[in-house]
């Protein structure tokens, strides 16, 4: 069966989604989702091992040879992203059981798991496919199901947030289709490897330039790059806790991967960063994102919204790494994909624990929470240290490589800006620490226990991993560097 792993990676969640819908009795749909996400984790782990030792895996759907047939193509870059997505899925699913039951009501639980599995399937599909149009289809599967997931939030503003995301997401997706269509018109193929080959022989025409523009703008909308991030804060704030954690840790990461794939594999580095002045554009936008979003995060009373803005800032770091267009910079971007998924996923899960107990994530309601829910708050703080970039956390590792990349490129001011921006993170994390530990709990506060273990353990798995990979960096840095070399080596 090992040769079919690439197909099973997407097919298992695809089968689990309708099954979740059929078995609506009590927790059964949760068990199906658990099976789906855990088996995907195993598969993606095996795929990464295969790729690291045996090179690129190419799987032909329906035995139709590419470029005519749809090809699933796994190299180090997407094997790594697959591992991120499925690991987050595998940790979030056990957490979801209590949280979803509390936030949704028992009767609608199966709807959540169906959409969740579809979203999971879509994200994995985007990552694994080697066909440009197939990528669009999977992107829409994941986007449509994430609109549904966000709209399931209790607050009525969740509906408007989902609607806003739907409109902007569809515009982004349509831009991507236009770009793919123009590339198809120019080359007559949709297979990514084939596209790259055929584009390399062609001089820059207006069609290719337009395709490049449409693709970059469309993908930037999906990954919430600074001026196009307007959908993100509302969507993450009003979505159910599990959904915020899952989407924050995976959806934007997959979009960043798509950007990498288009910029480096399909278009040449020379085209993306030489002919087109994309490096300076991305640099400026990334720096504005880092500072503006961090500054806005400082003034948010709602912690979920604070983390959402912090996500926009962290996406800025990833894009900054990509804009350096050298091995250390791109490796830092990929590394931060993984690291940020761990930290932000863990922190959103911690917020979900608070919401489970005190039904609020407003800073005003959190006075003294550090003594009432010590474990959850500790997880939040450790995650926050990672966001700041304190040594021995994953955040430090990404920033280290980011600074290295900046010096290699000769942009020392970018390195200085990275460090300066970390100070802003100190401010918004400290606000929370101050309220949670130093303020006394209100007199009439009801006695609450810490979150149930089924929620606390997944939270700590992610937070613990963010410490572990801050100390032992063999796997992450190794894979990220290999991936960066592969991406840049093509050009």
């Amino acid at each position, binding site marked *: *069966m090992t040769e*079919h792993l690439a*197909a*099973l990676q997407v*097919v298992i969640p*695809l*089968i689990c*989604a*309708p*099954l979740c*819908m*059929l078995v609506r009795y009590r927790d059964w749909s949760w068990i199906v989702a658990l099976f789906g996400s855990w088996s995907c984790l195993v598969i993606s782990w095996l795929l990464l091992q295969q790729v690291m030792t045996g090179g690129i895996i190419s*799987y*032909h*759907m*329906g*035995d139709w040879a590419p470029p005519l047939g749809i090809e699933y193509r796994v190299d180090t870059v997407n094997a790594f992203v697959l591992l991120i997505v499925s690991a987050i899925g595998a940790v979030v699913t056990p957490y979801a059981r209590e949280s979803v039951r509390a936030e949704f009501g028992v009767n609608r639980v199966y709807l959540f798991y169906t959409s969740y599995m579809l979203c999971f399937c879509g994200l994995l599909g985007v990552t694994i496919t080697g066909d440009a149009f197939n990528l669009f289809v999977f992107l829409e599967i994941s986007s449509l199901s994430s609109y549904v997931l966000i709209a399931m939030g209790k607050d009525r503003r969740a509906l408007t947030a989902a609607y806003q995301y739907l409109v902007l997401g569809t515009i982004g997706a349509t831009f991507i289709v236009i770009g793919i269509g123009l590339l198809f018109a120019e080359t007559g193929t949709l297979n990514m490897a084939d596209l790259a080959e055929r584009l390399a022989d062609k001089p820059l025409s207006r069609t290719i330039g337009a395709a490049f523009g449409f693709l970059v703008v469309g993908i930037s909308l999906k990954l919430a790059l600074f001026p196009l991030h307007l959908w993100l804060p509302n969507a993450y704030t009003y979505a159910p806790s599990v959904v915020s954690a899952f989407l924050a840790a995976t959806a934007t990461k997959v979009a960043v991967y798509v950007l990498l794939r288009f910029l480096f594999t399909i278009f040449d580095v020379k085209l993306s960063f030489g002919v087109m002045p994309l490096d300076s554009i991305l640099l400026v936008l990334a720096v504005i994102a880092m500072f503006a979003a961090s500054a806005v995060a400082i003034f948010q009373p709602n912690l979920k919204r604070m983390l959402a803005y912090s996500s926009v800032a962290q996406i800025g770091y990833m894009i900054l790494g990509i804009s350096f267009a050298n091995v250390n910079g791109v490796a830092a971007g990929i590394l931060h994909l993984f690291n940020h998924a761990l930290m932000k996923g863990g922190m959103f899960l911690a917020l979900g624990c608070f919401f489970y107990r005190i039904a609020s994530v407003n800073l005003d309601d959190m006075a003294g929470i550090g003594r009432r829910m010590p474990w959850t708050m500790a997880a939040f703080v450790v995650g926050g240290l990672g966001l700041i970039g304190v040594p021995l956390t994953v955040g430090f590792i990404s920033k280290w490589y980011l600074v290295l990349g900046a010096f290699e490129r000769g942009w020392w001011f970018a390195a200085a800006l990275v460090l300066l921006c970390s100070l802003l993170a100190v401010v918004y994390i400290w606000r929370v620490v101050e309220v949670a530990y130093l303020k006394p709990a209100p007199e009439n506060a009801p006695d609450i226990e810490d979150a149930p273990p089924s929620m606390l353990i997944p939270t700590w798995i992610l937070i613990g991993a963010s410490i572990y990979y801050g100390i032992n960096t063999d796997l992450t840095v190794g894979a990220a560097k290999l991936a960066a070399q592969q991406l840049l080596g093509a050009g």
Partner: protein
Amino acid sequence: MYSYLVLRVVAKLLMPFIMLFGLYVQFHGDFGPGGGFQAGVIFAAGFILYALIFGLQNASRVLPRGILRFGIALGVLLYAGVGVYNLLVGGKYLDYNVMAQNAVHGQHLGILLVELGVGITVTSVMVMVFFTFARHRQTKGDDQDGGSRPL
């Protein structure tokens, strides 16, 4: 019941032809224009016509919500199941060649089953979308006499 006699008679007359045309498009998809998407929509159009003329309540007696939900899941499972079956008998995912004694028969059988799955899901989804919106209007709207009234 209300007396839209012409509408009701014509709808009853049309119904078998719509279904027959749906089946034709469904099975013609193997070797000509047609297939599951189009056939599914035609089927759904038939049921929607029925619901428009005879009221939502009667239509949901023909196709209860549970069956629709089952149909949506079944179609996807049929499609994915064909792929997995191909894996198990030694081909690639969705490689129909290995499904029967030779490649030609295999391709026929495979595409037939996959299109059937697509057809079932599309029909169920379209009818479900219509029912959901229509029921919404009825429960929220001003007419209180239930679904026996034409929409």
